[in-house]
């Protein structure tokens, strides 16, 4: 209960004027942009992390619930907390630093998305997620909901662009996870936090990736007389392997409402319009735009026109961003549905929406991220009319059911909050929900942070999922694994999932002899939808087999993990989150994974994520499992995003001293080029300071060609001469030879630091790196070093040097003797505590070998 004492305490922490307790004050925080309502007890406005942490501690001691709030524009009731404390982060409003050289920025959570974009624009950089609410939604709120936006079709959503977080746990402890250095050891905590709707921790500082602005942009408006034709055009474009930056759709009611408020140049008599944008180097862009035009025209487009200048372009976007607000002209209230289906199912989904809206006599309009299959039917009504309100809720519910039946999910980007709580049953079984609850329990055992959100309490609806989805079944191999795991539970036998067994040495030694759990029976392709660019596979499938199958459709999984031969199982790759230098453009495993299934320590088959490209329903267990190295469960099935094979892969090479090469790499990283990789290796290992740099470009032929040319010019600016331009194989990439050399060493050291610190770390580390072979991934700030020997002290010294540069070091491989005395993850870090708590809660029987977890168990 909120007592006067607590109020006094909070006033003491933030000052009297930053605590609101009165009737009017709390009325102002009783809503967000959804229909939910509930009056909080107090609202506090801390200005820094210690104050926020003190508030959380005080609340936790008093047993009072609290919730972090940005600008309250979420659409799911996520910041409505009756009787609790609202911790408003609007005073955390500073951009702390922008670092183009290492492509990252550090911001406070109360900075709005647009403020960051505005600060980046003059530097020719941008932050990819761009929710339509960008001018009034905070980055903290974006993290809370894992927000997407029009551009996310090409770049992915918030979780794909946040690198690190500082946050306050529900008991007041402050931890950091991730940062400018990629892939911190251990569980992907930031993945779990992003989209957790303020229920796991309060984010107080954010490190994001920033990307160089593209040289050219074409924005087109395609006009249709039939909404089905517009939806078919979307499928046609994606099916043709083109990924525009945006593919947004609006239908007639929305077009008219927008035009009534603001003349954006949408034709009032159209049944639908698409806003299609492509960007990239000028070369090849017009060709791509032309392809899109043709595909649209083939699908009964009335006409398609490109914006002639920035003003026209902005006008088109202004209308799209304001569309939710504009419907206020049609009715005082709206309920926005946020279902997501595979893009090929869009025409069907839209037809179902129309049918439902007509049946309930609730008018609707559609404005949505068509390229992602993320629908936003807006149901229009007057919230003052209770009877209408009932009908609206029913219609909304049926739309969700319809989309789930079509293989989709209930929320693509707005979150569950309280509004979609009951609908969680449509897509998750009780076991799935319990596993998610475990995550919550590990973070917040007393259930004090934004309680009552995201996960519905157990009840009769728990059986709902089985009724709706047809994908519940599994094969004999999975049944056998379940049995093995269950009996291991009884016999207290520790298990180690090993994929096809090729990379068993990952992580620390554990005390017991784990029993290896193979995935050999799980090597089938379960479902492959080439026109939707999504594939679901068994975890035992080898990368090679998958690539073979995908190539038939001119597609591939854009992943070239070092050391992993093509024979490697995909489950193993996911568990170790392996990825190569090409992640600069393709992202890493976590970015490609849409959903997965795994067997937990209780022997239950758990589903996480889904099969659609946008999905924020529930906690992001998918990201948590990627890189969890078999410590939480045995992955059996995964759904992955695939891509069109690049037309051309081509590397520019040059030689020189490491310093010169680093200078060249820096110049390219700051430019508006989009290399796939920048790697330096010594020409003659152990010789004088003479290196070779490879700068790879992949994609459409014309664009690759022009980028290679431009990169060459930048090298010349740095008075370097390229020594060659070489094409390479898209599946195998360019570095297999080097990986083989590295793999021959007993020790394999992997260090990550912010991109611009890599060479510095390498030079500083030289004395403690006896006879080694280096592979410097200059585009991602990662060093891979093969070593024959490594003294304990040298290892710790190197780990410390990495830590001093805001990075971390990790031994991918080390002899057993060495592991007996060392932690391959380096010195303990505070955030490992919560990782172990997670492991304990999610695998209470300690069935899975803990060696993959940092911090010797």
């Amino acid at each position, binding site marked *: 209960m909120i007592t006067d004492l607590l109020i006094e305490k909070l006033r003491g922490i933030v000052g009297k004027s930053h605590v609101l307790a009165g009737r009017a004050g709390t009325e102002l925080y009783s809503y967000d942009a959804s229909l939910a309502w509930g009056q909080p007890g107090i609202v506090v406005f801390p200005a820094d992390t210690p104050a926020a942490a003190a508030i959380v501690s005080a609340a936790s001691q008093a047993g009072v619930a609290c919730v972090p709030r940005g600008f309250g524009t979420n659409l799911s009731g996520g910041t409505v907390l009756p009787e609790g404390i609202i911790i408003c982060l*609007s005073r955390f409003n500073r951009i702390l630093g922008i670092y183009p050289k290492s492509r990252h920025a550090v911001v406070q959570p109360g900075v709005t998305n647009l403020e960051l974009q505005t600060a980046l624009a003059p530097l020719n950089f941008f932050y990819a997620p761009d929710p339509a609410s960008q001018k009034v939604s905070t980055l903290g709120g974006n993290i809370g909901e894992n927000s997407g936006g029009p551009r996310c079709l090409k770049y992915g959503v918030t979780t794909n662009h946040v690198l690190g977080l500082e946050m306050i746990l529900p008991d007041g402890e402050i931890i950091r996870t991730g940062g400018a250095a990629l892939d911190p050891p251990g569980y992907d905590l930031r993945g779990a936090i992003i989209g957790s709707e303020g229920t796991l921790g309060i984010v107080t500082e954010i490190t994001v990736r920033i990307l160089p602005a593209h040289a050219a942009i074409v924005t087109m408006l395609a006009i249709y007389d039939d909404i089905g034709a517009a939806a078919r055009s979307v499928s046609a474009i994606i099916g043709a392997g083109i990924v525009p930056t945006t593919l947004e759709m609006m239908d007639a009611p929305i077009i008219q409402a927008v035009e009534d408020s603001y003349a954006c140049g949408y034709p009032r008599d159209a049944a639908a319009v698409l806003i299609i944008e492509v960007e990239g180097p000028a070369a090849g862009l017009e060709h791509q735009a032309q392809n899109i035009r043709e595909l649209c025209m083939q699908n009964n487009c009335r006409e398609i026109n490109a914006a002639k200048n920035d003003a026209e372009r902005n006008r088109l976007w202004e209308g799209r961003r304001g569309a939710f607000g504009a419907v206020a002209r049609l009715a005082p209230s709206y309920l926005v549905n946020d279902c997501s289906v595979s893009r090929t199912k869009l025409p069907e989904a839209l037809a179902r929406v129309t049918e439902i809206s007509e049946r309930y006599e609730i008018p609707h309009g559609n404005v949505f991220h068509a390229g992602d299959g993320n629908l936003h039917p807006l149901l229009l009504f007057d919230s003052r009319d209770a009877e209408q309100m009932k009908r609206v809720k029913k219609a909304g519910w049926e739309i969700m059911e319809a989309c789930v039946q079509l293989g989709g999910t209930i929320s693509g980007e707005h979150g569950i909050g309280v509004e979609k709580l009951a609908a969680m049953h449509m897509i998750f079984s009780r076991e799935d929900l319990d596993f998610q609850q475990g995550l919550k329990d590990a973070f917040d055992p007393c259930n004090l942070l934004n309680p009552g959100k995201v996960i519905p309490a157990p009840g009769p609806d728990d059986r709902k999922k089985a009724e709706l989805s047809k994908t519940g079944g599994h094969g004999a191999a999975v049944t056998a694994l379940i049995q093995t795991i269950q009996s291991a539970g009884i016999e207290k036998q520790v298990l180690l999932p090993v994929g096809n067994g090729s990379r068993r040495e990952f992580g620390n030694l554990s005390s017991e002899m784990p029993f290896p759990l193979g995935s050999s029976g799980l090597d089938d392709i379960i479902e492959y939808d080439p026109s939707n660019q999504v594939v679901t596979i068994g975890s035992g499938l080898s990368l090679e087999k998958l690539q073979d199958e995908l190539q038939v459709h001119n597609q591939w999984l854009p992943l070239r993990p070092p050391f992993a031969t093509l024979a490697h199982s995909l489950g193993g790759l996911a568990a170790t989150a392996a990825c190569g230098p090409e992640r600069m453009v393709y992202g890493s495993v976590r970015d490609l994974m849409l959903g997965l299934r795994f067997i937990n320590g209780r022997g239950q088959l758990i589903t996480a994520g889904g099969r659609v490209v946008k999905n924020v329903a529930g906690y992001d267990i998918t990201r948590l499992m990627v890189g969890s190295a078999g410590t939480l469960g045995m992955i059996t099935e995964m759904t992955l995003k695939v891509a069109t094979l690049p037309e051309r892969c081509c590397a520019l090479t040059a030689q020189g001293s490491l310093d010169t090469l680093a200078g060249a790499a820096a110049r390219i990283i700051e430019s508006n080029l989009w290399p796939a990789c920048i790697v330096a290796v010594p020409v003659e290992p152990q010789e004088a300071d003479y290196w070779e740099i490879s700068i790879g470009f992949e994609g459409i032929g014309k664009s690759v060609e022009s980028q290679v040319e431009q990169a060459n010019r930048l090298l010349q600016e740095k008075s370097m001469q390229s020594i060659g331009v070489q094409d390479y194989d898209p599946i195998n990439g360019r570095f297999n030879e080097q990986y083989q050399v590295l793999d021959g060493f007993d020790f394999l050291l992997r260090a990550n630091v912010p991109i611009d610190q890599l060479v510095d770390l390498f030079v500083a580390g030289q004395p403690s790196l006896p006879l080694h072979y280096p592979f410097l991934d200059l585009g991602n700030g990662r060093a891979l070093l093969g070593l024959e020997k490594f003294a304990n002290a040298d290892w710790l010294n190197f780990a410390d040097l990495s830590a001093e540069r805001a990075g971390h070091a990790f031994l991918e491989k080390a002899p057993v003797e060495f592991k007996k005395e060392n932690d391959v993850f380096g010195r303990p870090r505070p955030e490992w505590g919560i990782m172990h708590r997670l492991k304990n809660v999610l695998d209470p029987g300690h069935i899975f070998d803990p060696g993959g977890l940092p911090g010797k168990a």
Partner: protein
Amino acid sequence: MDIATYYDDISQCNKCGFCQVACPIFRSTGHESGVARGRLALLRAIIEGRLEWGADIEEPLFDCLLCGACTANCFPAIPTADLVLKARSEYLEKVGRKSIHRLLFDHLLPYPRRLHWAARAVALGKNSGLSDVAQALGLLRIFGRNLPKANEIVERFPHRAFRDTNKPGVYAGRGRSLRVGYFVGCGVDVITQDAGNATLQLLNKIAKEVHILDNCCCGLPAWSYGDMEAAQRLAEKNLSALASREVDVIVTDCSSCASFLKKYANLFPPGHRLHDNAVFVAGRVRDMVALLFDNQPHTAVRKDPLTVTYHDPCHAARGQGIVREPREILKSLPGINYKELPEADWCCGGAGSYAVAHHELSRKVLDRKMDNLKTTGADILVTSCPACVIQLSFGVRRHGLNTQVRHISQLIS
């Protein structure tokens, strides 16, 4: 009419939050109480019976700058400023007017001489018995919140009022035909007399006759405070001074006054005995900026070029739609390098007349303005409203900038 009459308008707010981006108060405080969505939510709560008229809504109602920026960003275009005004009016009825308001609106503003006298007496701090008067004047933004400390805001409090040297009457100018009536705003009269003198000089060049009008306060402060009756009384007094058919146009160099004079017809709805008169007067009012735009006098070429930027007073940009004119004037001046001010149309926190109850709040709004100003590196910051000139000059001094703040008339003459 009570606020419940506007339930439909208020219910149009779907809580999208888009108004947050432009509301100067919200951007400075991050408080929901300071943004249209919040103000409307409170009104809705009152209508729906969850909240009562009382002191705890005074701040959200009276902090509003009435700048209209929210409406410009609101797709359903909810006229929050108007609704807030209506609510203020009802608040005064239900919760009561304070005596200092009566003092200001009923006894000082109708009488320019009294206003000046009172202001000077308080500023000199001679008579401690004047604390009520000080407080009342403090409500006028032109003096700052706390008049006894007004030297912070008003650099040099002039000993004489503008009107002391420029009596009402008809003066011959050098222009060919135009007969101009000059409406002297309180700000010009009491404080920014340099601007007034510059305007007068320019009018002399442009017009054949300059009539210095015998007006009092335009009534905007009372109206913004929600005191319709006081506003009407002031307006009525002015209508008789302004109704002369001897002038072709009524000009004022205060954008706030100009925008309010143009709205006189709204104060006296059709059927009111003064309606026709109000329509007639309102139709002849022009902002000095607009007049200058049409009749730009020649100016001498400067030797060393100056960087100049421009702040849009709310009452010029949103109140009268004057945005392009001042920029074109400035760009056309020889020897001037014009640089656009980021967020130029953001309220400076001066809010024309009566406004920001919190000194701290108005400062935060001002600080943001100053940060933007710094990025331009301008030598001169130009604007067209005396209240803005006063507020911005205060900001420049507080931030130790070398930029000079000038009324547009001063820059041209």
